[in-house]
């Protein structure tokens, strides 16, 4: 945190090394997050660059109460949302269209056959906030309090979004179907 503030101050003072330091420090975790949202390198690369540009051109508006990393995540998520929404409109799969009904396999079978595509499709069907919260918690290993700051919501809301999201994924991927069978 202090290291970030030092780099930010030096960046504002025009030091190129500090600028590069911030980019090098956060480019990989940001790219990972963005890639999981947009699922292709070209968009992820473009959004990553835009995230940094937006952050550095608006550095004066950065309130130093929250961490720089959280602020970057907020910018990246907002930028990625637009691309994600455009794409999800094209390949939208409604939540009620239970994939499992067509091929009623259990989750274990899905894992065995590495049907990750279905998982991605199920993630696509989640509401934005739930999807982002699940991704941040499970794939980005962010803690709930950090997720709450990134998503600009309360800790309770972040946890609720996570639980609802995971529950819907389970339903989508067959758990509900399995229960019916049993």
């Amino acid at each position, binding site marked *: 945190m202090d290291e970030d503030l030092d780099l930010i101050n030096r960046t504002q003072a025009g030091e*190129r090394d500090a600028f590069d330091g911030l980019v090098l420090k956060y480019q990989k975790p940001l790219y990972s997050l963005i890639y999981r949202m947009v699922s292709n390198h070209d968009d992820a690369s473009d959004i990553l660059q835009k995230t940094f540009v937006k952050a550095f051109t608006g550095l004066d508006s950065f309130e130093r109460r929250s961490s720089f990393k959280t602020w970057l995540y907020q910018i990246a998520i907002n930028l990625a949302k637009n691309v994600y929404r455009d794409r999800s409109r094209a390949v939208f799969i409604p939540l009620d269209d239970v994939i499992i009904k067509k091929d009623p396999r259990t989750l274990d079978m899905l894992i065995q056959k590495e049907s990750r595509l279905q*998982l991605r499709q199920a993630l696509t069907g989640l509401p934005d906030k739930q999807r982002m919260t699940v991704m941040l918690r499970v794939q980005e290993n962010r803690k709930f309090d950090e997720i709450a700051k990134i998503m600009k919501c309360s800790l309770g809301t972040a946890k609720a979004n996570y639980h609802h999201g995971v529950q819907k994924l389970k339903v989508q991927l067959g758990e509900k179907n399995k229960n019916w069978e049993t």
Partner: protein
Amino acid sequence: MCTAIDIKELLPAFVEQGLGHADTLRVEGHLGFCEDCRTELSLLRMMAEERVPDPGKVFWATMPDRVYRAVQEQKSRRKPFDLARLADRLTLPRWAWAAATVGIVFMISWFIIQSPRHYPDVSGPPGYDLPDENMIADNTGTLHLSEFDQDELNIVDDWAGRELASIAHEAEFLMANNHDTDMYEELAELNAQEVKRLSEIIIHYKQEG
């Protein structure tokens, strides 16, 4: 469906092996009998194992330079006049508007207080109209007798004699009867011309003994 929310919240950390020994044992114990949580754990593992392809060293190494150039380009680009941006900049907090209002009211009050005072018009002797404001020097109501010719002086003298006669008589009467009266009150009611005229009369009386 399992309602052990506290266990479910520990599952992501369990997947990444970030739990302490006690919590790990607790989760493992729960998973031993809860199928719902085992299913959820499988789901989380599948998600966590989703790998993001590495774009390569060149990509990472050139990113700072690309970002720097884009930032410089954006900064150097001239921004057109944007009314919305201007309005946005004018958006001030309430206390700032209140302070500005108080300041404006204070300034208006200050100008009102500091504006030149309007003295009452000095009425001239009857039958003689003051020609213009040149007759009134420095805007205080003082008449410069040196500017009058002899005829004008005579008119003024007649008028002043009539106007001040009653006061002079009253003063003489009071002095003659040793009346204890505060003359300052009477004198305070005189205007500048009358005071001047009175002082001339007194001097005149003194000279004549």
